[in-house]
């Protein structure tokens, strides 16, 4: 999906918000449609650069499956200029979109025919949701599905309606935890690794997909290694400061790798020796 050489890689495509809905105190859900009418043409795990004129651009993961036609979905946390301006958008408002950029989860290759273990912390669920939906839409292509999701507090939970549907999928385990509960929270409490003993992982058949805050990876991967899951069966998605999204500006480099090009989705075996990765 590279733009033509004489096209401008920095020129956003006009797009229109079709749905904007608050999800938590700081995260909102967005559905956009490209004004050209074409599909975005992404794969699960890829991201776009969202452009708000005057505020700038921010890399945002696509949260919907490519099988959703005509529009695409994102979840954005209100942390700065672009995201704040996005939160002020109403259906019908315009934004600019560049992309999709980056690598994706290997839903058509390495993941196919395997058991899938999704491990997501907080907003890390956003790109992974795209893969989860893809897997469920092609359910017969994959084995057992385990989804582990953790947030800081019950108020931070995302996609709660989706979760109800995921729980009832065939041959699927959905487990959830919060770091700190509240009086109404009846579920599991503890960091995300405390969910792992509750799922059985067959290292020979499993591919793991991990996305969450930087601190999460080290501990989750340690646990998976204990379960003898090979590094080349683990996929992670990394976040870095990013300006261009196309391997020029230098901000997103982890050692020699540009996250926007060699990532954001990496096979762990490829970056386990890259010191700045995790």
């Amino acid at each position: 999906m590279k733009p033509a050489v004489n096209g401008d890689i920095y020129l956003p495509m006009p797009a229109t918000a079709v749905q904007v809905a608050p999800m938590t105190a700081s995260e909102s859900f967005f559905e956009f449609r490209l004004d050209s009418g074409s599909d975005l043409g992404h794969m699960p795990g890829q991201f776009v650069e969202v452009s708000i004129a005057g505020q700038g651009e921010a890399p945002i993961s696509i949260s919907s499956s490519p099988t959703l036609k005509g529009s695409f979905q994102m979840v954005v946390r209100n942390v700065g200029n672009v995201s704040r301006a996005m939160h002020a958008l109403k259906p019908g408002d315009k934004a600019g979109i560049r992309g999709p950029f980056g690598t994706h989860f290997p839903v058509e290759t390495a993941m196919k025919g395997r058991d899938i273990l999704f491990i997501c912390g907080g907003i890390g669920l956003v790109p992974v949701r795209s893969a989860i939906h893809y897997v469920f839409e092609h359910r017969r292509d994959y084995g057992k599905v385990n989804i582990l999701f953790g947030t800081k507090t019950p108020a931070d939970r995302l996609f709660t309606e989706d979760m109800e549907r995921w729980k009832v999928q065939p041959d699927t385990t959905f487990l959830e935890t919060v770091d700190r509960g509240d009086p109404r929270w009846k579920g599991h409490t503890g960091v995300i690794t405390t969910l792992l003993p509750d799922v059985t992982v067959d290292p020979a058949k499993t591919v793991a997909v991990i996305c969450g805050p930087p601190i999460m990876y080290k501990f989750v991967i340690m646990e998976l290694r204990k379960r003898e899951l090979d590094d080349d069966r683990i996929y992670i998605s990394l976040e870095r400061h990013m300006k261009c999204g196309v391997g020029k500006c230098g901000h997103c480099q982890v050692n020699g790798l540009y996250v926007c090009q060699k990532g954001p989705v990496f096979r762990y075996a490829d970056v386990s020796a890259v010191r700045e990765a995790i």
Partner: protein
Amino acid sequence: MSKPRVAIFDFACCEGCQLQIVNLEEEILDLLTVVQPVEWREAMSDHSESYDIAIVEGSITRPEDEARLKQIRERAGILIALGACATLGGVNKLKDNFELEDVKRCVYGEAAAMPHLATARVKAVDEVVKVDFKVHGCPINNKEFAAIVRCLATGKTPVIPSYPVCVECKKRENVCRYEYQEICLGPLTRAGCNAPCPSAGFWCFGCRGAVDEPNVNAARDVMARYGRTVEDLKSRMLLFGSRQEFANV
């Protein structure tokens, strides 16, 4: 959104920063399409009691000024410190290197005891009240000021460089002042001014204040390499009231 009501106040300073606003020339008319000034003593004769944005120029040098500043803070939604006197204390802070009595006597002699000549330790605005945004510099760069006003009008947090002046100095193709054995504070000072001083052949004297993590140890080594002393460096660092990380070299 209706235009934010803006009031400008001055405390002890040279009013050069307000002058930079005047120096926007016809752009002031554009400025007025974005904000509504309700109080600006230097330029107009109106007064007002409430405002969305208070812009405060100058440093706080008398107890009665502290009270006035607190009152301004109470009436303002957003408070902006304008210029080095407000953000750092500015040259006024040089006074604090001496005993107050000595300072007064030096300037007013026998009359120093007269009550209207009272003075106190110099404070930057954020040493008295909460400051929401700082417009750095002595004087401020009016292009930067205008950009900050436009940011606030669009709900954007202004992006103020966290890197040192050398970045902008290099972009402007200057010969480094150190090549002339001069002490330049560029490597320790927050950029955003576009390095007008080194570009005019003069050292950076630090009027925008220190970067977040100034490497004062490196500065010490550099002084030794250029045959200057830490005292030389310190003396220059203090000119605009930059804070303790500078003073403790």
